[in-house]
């Protein structure tokens, strides 16, 4: 079994008529003003393929998130190929806390074997100073 695609995005949807998968606003990098920062929502789209000899219901599939090479999150994934050779997995992740700038790696694994990963570069752009815009003084 292998992951043909894994990508993180702001939104993933399935067209009801055509059953096709659409991915919107791929997350390649995050520019954040302050840390720690809570990303409220992120979607992960994964395409898995298997050989005919692989089980239709794979076991021990999991999603992991690494922040600067440290694992900070892990979740089990339920998958069922339903006797087909390809499977679309959509994982909605809510409220992930990013502790520091660097590289986020989202990987899909079976046991400890990594099948694929998506990197997100996280930049600290600083909070910026508030600037008060005042109207020009009017002459009396």
């Amino acid at each position: 079994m292998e992951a043909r695609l894994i990508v993180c995005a702001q939104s993933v949807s399935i067209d009801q008529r055509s059953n096709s998968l659409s991915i919107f606003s791929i997350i390649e990098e995050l520019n954040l003003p302050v840390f720690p920062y809570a990303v409220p929502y992120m979607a992960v789209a994964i395409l898995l393929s298997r050989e005919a000899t692989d089980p239709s219901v794979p076991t021990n599939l999991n999603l992991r998130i690494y922040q600067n090479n440290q694992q900070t999150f892990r979740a089990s994934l339920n998958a069922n190929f339903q006797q087909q050779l390809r499977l679309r997995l959509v994982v909605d992740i809510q409220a992930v806390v990013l502790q520091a700038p660097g590289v986020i790696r989202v990987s899909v694994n079976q046991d400890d074997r990594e099948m694929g990963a998506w990197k997100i570069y996280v930049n600290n752009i600083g909070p910026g100073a508030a600037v008060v815009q005042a109207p020009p003084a009017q002459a009396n």
Partner: protein
Amino acid sequence: MNSIAEANLQNAAQAYAVANTPLFLIRRLQEDSTVQEIATSFSGEEILAELQRSAARAPESLLDYTRPYVYLIALAKQQNSDCLRAAGAVETKDWRWFSYMKDVLLETYSPLSTTSVLGEIARMSPSYSTLTRSESPALRITVGE
């Protein structure tokens, strides 16, 4: 609709009437909103049962010829393909495209699994959506110091 039998299949029947190939009929029925409504409103078992009932009677009208195809496409739109596979056992000798369409739909069936997982903050607080920044020191942001 309260039952599958109440579904308005006029558009589907029109598609069947002009279809010259089974692939054309598959495409038109996949685009039909009534077929979509049947697929989302009823379980695979209910649709399969209705398919068996409709195929058990000899067709007498255009709608009778259309029904098994409609239910077959609706089964293909389900998240679980078990009932679509079971449709292959239904006797459909009066519907000559049925077997081919069932094979095409199974061949092109693309399963989908969806999972929602909660990150650290959501797991700490069930009411994550109502958290304000002042309640969580980790989220406090200072601007313009």
